[in-house]
């Protein structure tokens, strides 16, 4: 537990030290969401219909951005070796790193999305559901991203393989997330998809770290 906090603190410090990298996903998200009206020049209700989809895709992509750099940096400067060798259990360390990544990339996103959503004419009372769905989806995404990064950390160029592995795994989140949001937009019950997202999150957070730790260990061999 203690080591969890230590690693968390360090990674957060790193994230905010490289504020640029921190701002990266947000900026990316804003720009992407901004580009669409630019490129499509849709009407208000066109925008409303495609809005949720765009929001979710942009959110997914922007949290995939930081993917490669999640363990790569630690692997290149040798601090991953030190983390593996440290007496702290690797699962905890990984959980801490992923949590930091989530706090640094997921949370600001969750904060930003409603604003953009309003600019897409989404009804205000759908926002709570949208945010809830995002809060439930982003941890799973972070875990999946981390898994992909860990599996490919020893490949000098992780990129595509991760994308290949992770994006499909993320697609259910995308689908059920948009589903929930759409239902909310049309004022229908959204419990179903939200429960699903929640259960997926629990699953990911409970099983993920150990698998990620194992992957890292093998990767560093």
């Amino acid at each position, binding site marked *: 537990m*203690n*080591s969890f906090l*230590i*690693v968390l603190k*360090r990674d957060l*410090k*790193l994230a905010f*030290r*490289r504020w640029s990298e921190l701002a990266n996903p947000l900026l990316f998200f804003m720009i992407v969401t901004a580009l669409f009206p630019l490129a499509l020049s849709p009407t208000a209700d066109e925008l409303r219909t495609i809005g949720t989809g765009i929001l979710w895709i942009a959110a997914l992509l922007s949290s995939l951005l930081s993917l490669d750099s999640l363990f790569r940096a630690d692997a*290149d*400067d*040798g*601090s991953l*070796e*030190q*983390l*593996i*060798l*440290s*007496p*702290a*259990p690797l699962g905890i360390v990984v959980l801490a790193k992923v949590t930091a990544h989530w706090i640094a990339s997921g949370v600001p996103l969750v904060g930003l999305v409603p604003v953009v959503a309003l600019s897409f004419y989404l009804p205000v009372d759908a926002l709570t559901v949208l945010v809830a769905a995002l809060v439930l989806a982003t941890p799973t995404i972070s875990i999946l991203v981390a898994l992909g990064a860990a599996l490919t950390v020893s490949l000098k160029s992780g990129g595509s393989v991760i994308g290949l592995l992770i994006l499909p795994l993320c697609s259910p989140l995308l689908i059920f997330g948009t589903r929930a949001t759409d239902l909310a937009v049309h004022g229908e019950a959204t419990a179903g998809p939200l429960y699903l997202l929640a259960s997926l999150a629990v699953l990911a957070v409970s099983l993920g770290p150990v698998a990620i730790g194992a992957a890292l260990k093998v990767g*560093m*061999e």
Partner: protein
Amino acid sequence: MQQPVPVLEARNIDIWRGGRCLIRGLSFSVGGGQLALVVGPNGAGKTSLLRVLAGLAPYGSGQVLWNGIAVPRLAPEQRADFVYRGHLDGLKKELTVEENLSFSAALRGQAAVFDSLLTTLNLNDVADRETRFLSAGQRRRVGLAALKLANARLWLLDEPMTNLDAAGRALVTGWVDEHLRGGGIAVVATHQPEELARPGTTLVEL
């Protein structure tokens, strides 16, 4: 199950890298207060061996035992006995010297009191500079500070003298002496054994 005198033992291990067997049937053992120097030409397998001893890399056959326990199966708290410093210095470029040190100390549950340490390492005036601005040797020195802070019983050092000036090298020699006198174990890969060798040193030639 900890013995009064700690022992690191390798029982004829094979080490494979990229489909080639680098080291075949290597056996040696170092006990408390002893130093093992790993020597050999470039590419002989020194780094590979140290990584195996640290439990970072797998080995083909044989066994690596720490106090009788196979190294890959050590419990986390037993890993606290180990400290490994390799070719990479394991510092975060964006963190200052102090931040780096206090992190690595905290992670091992050690108190992070290193003012005097920084003085001896002559790092005082760069203590709060991000390590990416440090010179090669200064970075190595920070690594050495981390080594010292870990106060572990087994030191695994891969060419610790790299990039160090005369003073730095003397410091390392002194530290190793001290560590051994305190009953610690040191396994050091080096190209200049004369700097560290002493009577009673185990020489592991690859």
